[in-house]
């Protein structure tokens, strides 16, 4: 190829370079073309080749472009666009959006111009010929129901006559007063005087609590009475009077003491009613609802309100359902008062309390505090005066079930038995003949009767004090107390060393064994003002008087240093073991026995069962859905040794079912098996010795449902008063729940028809 190519080119070149050039002969002879000609030709060739290549390139490019076009039509155009425009500008769009915003803002201006300039005078007239008065509107308070759905508290509508005043003229007012005076049996002058004293208010109260014929009169003569309207007010009513009065509490005005909380902190109005005690106070925030406002628009000419608008409307408070069983509560209250009135101890009984709990949920089924009070006395005008002396002197304002700790006596024995077993003071096999009396140091202490041979359970059943003195003394490592000897500290240590170490440890163990069941600590029941129980220790430096024992400090000190300084005596722990050196409230005792019954779960007692949305219902039925349901709250799981717990429970079963049991007589003939414990504590009231009658119980023995604690200071032995009340409460519970009893003895869940006239509801006025 090169040869051919070269020859051809040479020929061409020859033609082209025909004119010739003066070169050397030699070169002319050998070759007719010079080197320069050759270069020229080479260049021309290259040029042609480049041209061809370019043409080819263009062809290829157009093919590629065609391909891309083709691809673009298949939907991938965006790729090409972005390759051409790597960054898109937003400027145009930004301006378009600005244009739209500008237009809409301009339309606002136009609209304003129309309203303010074109229609302005019309609106100005409209605004200035009407007057708006704003009056706060109190919300209806939530209602309270018992666990069976019975209504226990509600707001009763009360009509008042008010005068909405604005630009009032005196002549017109005088005319109004003249019309009203005869209907309300007053002089028109007194009406005018009343108006003048309230001149500064937008709404003047003319008459409160007006009757229906007066309401009708005002409605009929409305056109002659400009500005006068009938206003709805409310009054708190407790339809069952003294029933569960301490639980419900009552409402009252905001006082100077509560002002800063309600008015400044919560923003209440000064004329709002708030819960003063009980559930009314505890759940005031749920019951209260929220205040509304009423805009009353008058026209300027007449004084007639043009329209009345709620802005905002008041929101009623929630309805509450309690765990309290109204039937059981009523029967218990009546039973307690009639029992006391018939009792030989009537003169010494000043107060009493009874509590029944559901052992599995902590629900308070009944909570009675004697003497009773009727919350209506505080809320219905004119009633308080009649009862002021009674309320001030009887102690009825105190809720004895939660605020009045007293000596529990032997009811603490089941707890102490478990503690004794846990620390080895006794074993499940312990059994011996208890002496009637023993010396403890220098003192002689005896049982109420000789009990003979007892084991752990029987010691609870017969309530042997000496057996439990020994449990206490063993816990404190004070050995050798017997009918003939007062005993001595273990290991022959000095008395003070023993006090600070073994005694302090033993007493702490004993008290802590009670404390963990809820005794001596707040149960957390949802009522205001709960008081916790107390522990005491005898102090040799103070003539062996009982002084408060700080259990928490003792526990801490013993844990840290192994000792806790005190100046006590072995008698102190012996008496502690039988419940004479501590004070507990009935609610604490109820939580304690409930914890024994349910196997060691300390559940917080509670009174609120469910919250229902606002509404003027007269009963809670199955159709209503609660907005909130209260769940049981387990405060602690005691993890008790089942064997020990079972021994204590057996002992308590014996109390009610063994003929030797201290409450056997009380529970004779019961169709169910109860377990209980009596307590008879020595107390002094105004220097007079008497006994505190205490009883705790749960039933049925197997699968327990309810736990009861009854305390009647001054009521004799535990079995004499408290146990009888407890028996009646448990009977009523099972009769009402249709268990154990034959159908003929079943009771309904309604509050007994004769309740309002019963002693319990009526006997507490004159006293």
């Amino acid at each position, binding site marked *: 190829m090169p040869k051919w190519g070269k020859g051809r080119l040479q020929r061409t070149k020859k033609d082209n370079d025909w004119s010739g050039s003066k070169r050397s002969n030699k070169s002319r002879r050998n070759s007719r073309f010079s080197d320069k000609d050759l270069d020229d030709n080479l260049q021309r060739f290259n040029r042609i080749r480049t041209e061809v290549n370019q043409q080819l390139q263009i062809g290829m490019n157009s093919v590629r472009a065609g391909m891309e076009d083709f691809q673009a039509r298949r939907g991938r155009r965006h790729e090409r666009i972005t390759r051409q425009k790597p960054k898109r500008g937003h400027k145009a769009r*930004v301006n378009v*959006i600005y244009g739209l915003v500008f237009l809409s803002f301009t339309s*606002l*201006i136009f609209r304003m111009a129309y309203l*303010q300039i074109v229609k302005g005078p019309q609106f100005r007239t*409209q*605004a200035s010929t009407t007057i708006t008065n704003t009056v706060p509107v109190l919300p209806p308070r939530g209602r309270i129901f018992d666990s069976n759905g019975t209504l226990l508290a509600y707001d009763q509508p009360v009509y008042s006559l008010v005068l909405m005043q604005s630009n009032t003229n005196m002549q017109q007012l005088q005319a109004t007063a003249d019309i009203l005076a005869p209907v309300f049996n007053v002089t028109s002058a007194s009406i005018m005087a009343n108006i003048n004293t309230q001149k500064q208010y937008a709404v003047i109260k003319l008459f409160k609590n007006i009757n229906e014929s007066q309401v009708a009169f005002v409605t009929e003569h409305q056109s002659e009475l400009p500005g006068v309207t009938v206003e709805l007010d409310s009054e708190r009513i407790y339809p069952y009077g003294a029933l569960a009065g301490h639980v419900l509490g009552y409402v009252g005005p905001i006082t100077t003491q509560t002002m800063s909380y309600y008015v400044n902190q919560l923003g209440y109005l000064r004329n709002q009613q708030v819960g003063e005690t009980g559930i009314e106070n505890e759940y005031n925030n749920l019951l209260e609802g929220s205040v509304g406002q009423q805009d009353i628009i008058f026209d300027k000419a007449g004084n007639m309100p043009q329209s009345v608008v709620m802005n905002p409307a008041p929101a009623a408070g929630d309805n509450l359902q309690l765990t309290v069983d109204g039937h059981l509560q009523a029967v218990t209250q009546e039973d307690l008062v009639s029992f006391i009135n018939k009792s030989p101890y009537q003169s010494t009984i000043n107060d009493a309390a009874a509590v029944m709990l559901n052992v599995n949920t902590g629900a308070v089924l009944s909570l009675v505090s004697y003497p009773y009070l009727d919350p209506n006395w505080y809320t219905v005008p004119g009633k308080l005066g009649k009862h002021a002396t009674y309320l001030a002197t009887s102690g009825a304002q105190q809720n004895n079930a939660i605020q009045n700790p007293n000596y529990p006596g032997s009811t603490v024995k089941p707890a102490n038995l478990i503690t004794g077993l846990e620390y080895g003071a006794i074993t499940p096999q312990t059994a011996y003949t208890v002496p009637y009396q023993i010396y403890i140091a220098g003192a002689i202490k005896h049982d109420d009767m000789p009990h003979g041979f007892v084991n752990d359970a029987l010691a609870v059943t017969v309530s042997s004090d000496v057996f439990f003195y020994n449990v206490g003394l063993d816990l404190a490592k004070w050995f050798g107390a017997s009918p003939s000897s007062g005993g001595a500290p273990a290991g022959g240590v000095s008395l003070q060393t023993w006090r600070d170490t073994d005694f302090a440890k033993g007493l702490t163990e004993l008290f802590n064994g009670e404390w963990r069941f809820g005794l001596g600590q707040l149960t957390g029941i949802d009522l205001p003002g709960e008081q916790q129980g107390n522990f005491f220790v005898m102090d040799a430096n103070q003539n062996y008087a009982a002084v408060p024992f700080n259990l928490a400090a003792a526990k801490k000190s013993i844990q840290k240093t192994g000792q806790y300084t005190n100046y006590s005596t072995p008698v102190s722990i012996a008496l502690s073991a039988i419940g004479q050196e501590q004070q507990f409230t009935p609610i604490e005792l109820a939580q304690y026995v409930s914890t024994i019954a349910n196997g060691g779960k300390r559940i917080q007692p509670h009174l609120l069962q469910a919250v229902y949305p606002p509404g003027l219902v007269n009963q809670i039925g199955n159709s209503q859905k609660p907005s909130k349901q209260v769940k049981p709250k387990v405060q602690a799981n005691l993890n008790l040794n089942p064997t020990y717990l079972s021994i204590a429970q057996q002992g308590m079963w014996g109390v009610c079912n063994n003929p030797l049991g201290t409450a056997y007589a009380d529970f004779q003939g019961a169709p169910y098996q109860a377990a209980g414990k009596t307590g008879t504590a020595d107390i002094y009231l105004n220097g007079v010795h008497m006994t505190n009658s205490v009883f705790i119980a749960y039933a049925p023995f197997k699968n327990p449902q309810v736990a009861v604690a009854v305390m009647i200071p001054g009521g004799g032995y535990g079995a004499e008063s408290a146990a009888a009340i407890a028996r009646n409460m448990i009977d009523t519970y099972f009769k009402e729940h249709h268990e154990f009893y034959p159908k003929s003895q079943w009771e309904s869940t309604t509050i007994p028809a004769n309740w309002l006239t019963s002693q319990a509801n009526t006997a507490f006025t004159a006293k």
Partner: protein
Amino acid sequence: MLQFWKKIDLVLILTCVALSVISCVAIYAATHGKTNPQIPSHAWAKQMVYSAVGFVVMWLAIAIDYRSLRKMHWWLYGVTLLLLTAVFGFHAVNGARSWIPLPGFSLQPSEFAKLTLIVTLASLMANTDEAEYPDYRIRKTLPMWGLMIVPFALTLKEPALGQAIVMFAIFCTMYIMFLRRTWFVLSVIIFVAFSIVFIVLPVEFPGLAMNVVQNVIIKHHLLHGYQANRILTWLDPSYQTSGAGYEIHQAQTAIGSGQVFGEGWLRGIETSSGGVPNQWTDYIFTAIAEEFGFLGSSVVVLLFTILVYRLIRAASVSKDTFGTYIIMGVVGLFAFQVFENIGMDMYLSPSTGITLPFISYGGSSLVANYIAVGLAINIRKRSPAFHFSKTYT
């Protein structure tokens, strides 16, 4: 130092300060001498404190590099969702669980949710813009819809319909910025057409529209009763003027009675007698309109127009698409809230609980607004074209 000030949009800042001053004056007028238990004590003074806090926070928003938000936008979004969920654990105020009570003040997370929504969306959109092969197909934007729906639904559940709608308005503004040009044009046309229908419908065919609401929306429970009432009120100004329509009726009366020059500060007939409900929050504009008249209320609208104009300028000079999207989100936020809030007082749109930016009483809203403005200033400060733009535009 001078360089720093040169780059700060002082006009924008002065506009906000002016609005804050108007706010305190108006809140004082709307609350003084009132016994309404819902009015917070010393509302105007509190608003002043909130303004000061907002002003300081704005400088913080200017000081940081807004581009760092892009790295942390998922965190912001996550925290926002947590807060929006947390409100359900607290007591309802006026029937809505919108607030988290903290010592001293209540936090309204939905106000800040609007900002985080803007930042998150802007970040996503900017990612697409800056990709080597940007993909603007509609289905690729589904994640953006998702990002908007979650806070939208949570806010709607509070219930705070107004706030939820603002979120949607923000989303729409940013979305049409992002879409392909064809879609943008189409959206604008649809928007304009919708607006015309919106204006013509109540004016020309109120009966028909009311029938639709009564027989379709209410019957099939598409809206809550009170929400349907608001639409009915808008369609028919005489609807339940002493019930559902009372608020707006009073609001319009107050605005109209302001006439050209207003009734004078603290001398408004409706304002001083508490005639307009919730006047210190949602209906604050009525206090300005009644006491300062057409003149005063025009100044307010004018100030808002300046505000939006400065934002628009910042958006158009920004060379960073992330920044542009943020600013346009903020534009959407302000423009919609201003139009809806002022418009509802005058029967231009159905009423919803939306605050008037910078003016309505409320700390969360105020601080959030100042942050939004701070971000815009920040973006403008960092856009290189700022110096040249003066010669070009």
